[in-house]
């Protein structure tokens, strides 16, 4: 069982959370201006790294807030969790 540090509630069991995929994906402000390839990339294509990843999580059975996390997809270890709008504490590009 992973222990996840919700930025609002502190450490809680993994089963209280929902994984919401890659973080920092910004919805294009003018979709009509995009090519099909750019729109398809926004909707469907993902980074999917083996190693450190920036992810969106939802504390669904707790405070119901979305937040971001830096987590390693091989060891499953969390480096940090941070609120939406903040940048990752490690400062590495996403």
């Amino acid at each position, binding site marked *: *069982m*992973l222990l996840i540090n919700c930025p609002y509630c502190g450490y809680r*069991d*993994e*089963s209280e959370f*929902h*994984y919401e*995929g890659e973080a920092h994906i910004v919805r294009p402000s003018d979709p009509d201006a995009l090519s*099909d*390839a750019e729109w*398809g*990339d926004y*909707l*469907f*294509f*993902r*980074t*999917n*790294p*083996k190693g450190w*990843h920036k*992810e969106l999580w939802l504390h669904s059975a707790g405070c119901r807030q979305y937040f971001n996390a830096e*987590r390693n*997809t*091989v*060891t*499953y270890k969390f480096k940090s969790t941070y609120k939406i709008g903040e940048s990752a504490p490690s400062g590495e590009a996403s």
Partner: protein
Amino acid sequence: MSHHENWPKAWRSPEPKKRYDAVIVGGGGHGLASAYYLAKEHGMTNIAVLEKGWLGGGNTGRNTTIVRSNYLWDEAAHLYEKSVKLWEGLSQELNYNVMFSQRGVYSLGHTLQDMRDIERRVNANRLNGVDSVVVSTEELSKRIPYLNTSADARYPILGASFQARGGTARHDAVAWGFARAADALGVDIIQNCEVTAIRRDQGRVTGLDTAKGYIETPKVGVVVAGNSSVLAEMAGLRLPLESHPLQAYVSEPIKPVLDTVVMSNAVHGYISQSDKGDLVIGAGIDRYNGYGQRGSYSVIEHTMEAILEMFPVFSRVRMNRQWGGIVDTCPDACPLISKTDVEGLYFNCGWGTGGFKATPGSGWVFAHTLANDQPHELNAAFAINRFISGALIDEHGAAGVAH
């Protein structure tokens, strides 16, 4: 008689040559099948399969071996049905017993909407020549005596779909059988040979850096399941995939109690019994991305709850082993069997939670795609660019609980 010593080697394991006409990356069932059909159907015998670990050590040797073809949409039904047809002759074809057992597959319905979906899918299957029938609860209780068909169940069973030609197979045997048959046609099978870079020149593949040195080749077929995004990045490509752990479980061996496959999307679990007697169980992916080949305890608990909802009689059975594989899930629950923007580079991936059943058919169409530099009509719809055109093939209903 030599008391099981001095068995001949099933394949040669040579040192890699400097150059091949094509290289398959990934020695799982799909990669080995691709190599076999390249040699057998397209006469390409100067080829190699490079595997970073051992043959079948990925999802091929970790899955719960369910085979069926009752998918909803024409494209998927035709692709998986091609595969079931190949399964039906595979032990003969490879001269290797893959223990394909057509014990039938039931998919349970627990709500009126489940039953409407089941009837729609069964009708679609029959129009596509895929055997499929709707089964009533009374029939189910006769056919699967220990299934809890009581109306008092928490999620009462209202019926099921049944594909009689579905079933199970022995997963290791599939890898070994394809490997031995490919080797006999001259294919070099090279284990402990991780690919670390894909070299390109002016948009064309030129070769691969590997743990055993540089190998020159104009054609590369990547068939690495959960590691597909990692290989894509080596060629500067992005794929519409995410990698997730998917777990499986087997119990202690018990006497024969279940002679078919039972799955439920709604309760969310599936079960069969192996010839050794152990119950073979699976359910859903761990929701987070992961490459760790293990999953979380909460998923184990959820899976066991689902199995006991269907089969309360198994509550005292002890589980023996549990493990995880890394599945490459695609947004429409269908594979990518495709050319790429790099000339000579092909990907066969995105099979996610349900590609074992497709092993022979996947290799067959991928071999055609590599040999002819264009897809076969069976896999033309499964190109990567469907995620740009929008022509998705939504099989989330038929893919259902991961199998």
